[in-house]
């Protein structure tokens, strides 16, 4: 039953349906908007990476000799702001979610296409505000904007950066709103909740967080800006204001925000692990419900960022207990992916390599999070590099790897082209090695007592810092290579065909790239999710 090998990229697709800047900048097509986001967040990723590079260069030597301490404060602030608000939070939802969710549920577009485009413009305006404040002198408050430094004492461009984040928050809210309505109201006939791809469940859960949490940080950041501008001093200690109130309001969003970041990545992993083990996911309902559980429980733990800030010990006890609880659904997911792999027919394509990396590194990051949930341990390692290592393990070792996995997995669908597998595998290896070399030493450094956010450190910490910086240069190569070969593949990559991975899912039943309207006829779904038993084995695989 040979299927003809597709040797050309499908014509009449969303990419060539209308040329010219206006057709892109005024598009309502969710797939084009996804591409717009892809370009923007990639740019912000390299902005954040640039600041990271300067940080690691400074930390090569114990003395603060590359930059002043004030400048160093600006570097880690702007690294954090770029990476968190302008890369990680939009990454999978705005790029992969926007592109795939309508396809995965059999819809023609998201529920509110114009809102989707508005969301990208809002993101861009926010990014411009942030970039302008960075270029015109920077911000030095930390991405966490703690008061009263941010409201009263800092004399850097706090308002510009704060407004940039405030504005970008609305982009996130509108994306989440769009996803929730779409998934509730626009599923194709037969696409019941229990047949929904887990990628959709994860993005749905993340969207709940976006809608409930982002407005709180929005008002908090707005209050910071108002306090700087108009002296509306809600956080000013001189008036009796409580700096911890800022932290409560800030972390009420910013902790769930880490789940906004990781949940969509987990959704990607669910899709990839099933496809490349040719197996149904183990415990579909558990994985789906675990996503919702993470979203809900994630709102109950925020003060674990404040254990040593001055909250009451009783509140700390409560939040510590709740923080242990939130680890459970994440662990459920890891176990279920592992069980999915068991006795699967494993294929080691690049997306799967990244997925393996994710499972291992996210587990390390997640476990160290449980260490931090313990009050006694946290008092020792808080504000040290232990925390820095922990969150980089989950956000980079977890989230960025998941994003790379997803990009590779769906690149053929998005562009109609395969990327070069050899280079891709090399990059994945470089990322994995470089990442561990960069961040594992930081666990040790933190435990030994090296504080974070300092540009100078005692000389006995130098060896580990040098290792970390060396690792970061390897990691950087691992990031730059995909940029190059993905761009290369747009012109020279082998045409991919509709389903190069032989995966199950509605998105794989459309041509690559898909036509603007996604489906000629609305599909009727009669099969279960991840129905790999009934998926024919190796068809002609293109691109290898």
């Amino acid at each position, binding site marked *: 039953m040979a299927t003809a090998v597709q040797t050309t990229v499908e014509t009449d697709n969303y990419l060539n349906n209308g040329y010219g800047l206006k057709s892109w900048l005024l598009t309502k097509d969710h797939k084009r908007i996804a591409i717009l986001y892809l370009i923007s967040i990639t740019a912000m990723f390299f902005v954040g990476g640039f600041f990271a590079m300067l940080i690691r260069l400074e930390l090569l030597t114990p003395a603060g000799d590359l930059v002043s301490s004030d400048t160093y404060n600006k570097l880690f602030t702007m690294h954090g702001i770029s990476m968190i608000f302008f890369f990680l939070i939009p990454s999978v939802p705005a790029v992969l979610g926007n592109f795939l969710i309508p396809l995965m549920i059999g819809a023609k577009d998201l529920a509110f296409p114009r809102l989707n485009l508005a969301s990208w413009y809002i993101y861009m305006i926010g990014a411009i505000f942030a970039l302008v404040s960075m270029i015109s002198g920077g911000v030095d408050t930390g991405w966490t904007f703690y008061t009263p430094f941010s409201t009263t004492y800092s004399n850097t461009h706090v308002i510009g950066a704060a407004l940039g984040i405030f504005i970008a928050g609305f982009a996130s809210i509108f994306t989440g709103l769009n996803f929730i309505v779409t998934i509730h109201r626009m599923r194709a006939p037969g696409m019941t909740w229990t047949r929904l791809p887990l990628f959709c469940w994860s993005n749905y859960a993340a969207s709940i967080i976006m809608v409930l949490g982002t407005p709180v940080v929005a008002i908090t950041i707005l209050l910071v800006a108002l306090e700087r501008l108009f002296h509306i001093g809600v956080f000013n200690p001189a008036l009796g204001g409580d700096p911890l109130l800022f932290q409560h309001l800030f972390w009420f969003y910013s902790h769930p925000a880490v789940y906004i970041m990781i949940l969509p990545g987990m959704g990607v992993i669910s899709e990839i692990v099933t496809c490349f083990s040719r197996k149904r996911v183990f415990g579909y309902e558990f994985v789906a419900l675990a996503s919702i559980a993470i979203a809900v429980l994630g709102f109950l733990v925020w003060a674990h960022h404040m254990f040593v800030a001055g909250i009451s010990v009783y509140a700390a006890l409560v*939040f510590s207990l709740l923080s242990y609880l939130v680890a459970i659904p994440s662990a459920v997911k890891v176990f279920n992916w592992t069980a999915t792999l068991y006795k699967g027919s494993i294929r080691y394509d690049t997306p799967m390599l990244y997925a393996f990396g994710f499972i291992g590194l996210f587990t390390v990051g997640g476990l160290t999070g449980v260490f931090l949930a313990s009050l006694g341990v946290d008092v020792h390692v808080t504000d040290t590099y232990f925390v820095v290592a922990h969150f980089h393990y989950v956000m980079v070792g977890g989230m960025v790897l998941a994003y790379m996995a997803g990009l590779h997995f769906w690149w053929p669908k998005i562009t109609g082209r395969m990327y070069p597998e050899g280079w891709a595998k090399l990059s994945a290896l470089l990322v994995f090695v470089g990442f561990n070399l960069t961040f594992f030493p930081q666990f040790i450094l933190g435990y030994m007592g090296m504080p974070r956010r300092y540009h100078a450190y005692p000389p006995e910490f130098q060896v580990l810092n040098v290792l970390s910086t060396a690792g970061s240069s390897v990691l950087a190569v691992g990031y730059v290579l995909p940029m190059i070969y993905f761009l290369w593949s747009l012109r020279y990559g082998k045409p991919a065909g509709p389903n190069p991975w032989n995966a199950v899912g509605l998105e794989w039943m459309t041509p690559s790239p898909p036509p603007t309207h996604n489906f000629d006829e609305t599909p009727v779904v009669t099969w279960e999710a991840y129905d790999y038993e009934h998926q024919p084995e190796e068809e002609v695989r293109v691109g290898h």
Partner: protein
Amino acid sequence: MSTEEHRQHVIPTSIYVGIWAVLMVLTGVTVFASFIELGDWNIVLALTIASIKATLVVLFFMHLYYSSKLTKVTMIAAVFFLFLLLALSMTDYLTRGWLTNPGR
């Protein structure tokens, strides 16, 4: 699959006017009650009245009573999460004075 909602259900003008009247009366009650010294119960009473007014507006002016279960759940979720923000923050503020250092 459509929810028929209230597209078929048009609420009579009299109901709207009735709700309006109740809201106006409750406003008067809350102003009047604020002149009476009830100690800590003043705020409880004021918020109770406000919540009754809010519930009437949400259920009838905003048609939540006639809306789908999804919409109802969504509203309840919003109120619940706001409650979480307030309640869990207060676990800190209410207990800050509790623990004194032993030996001090």
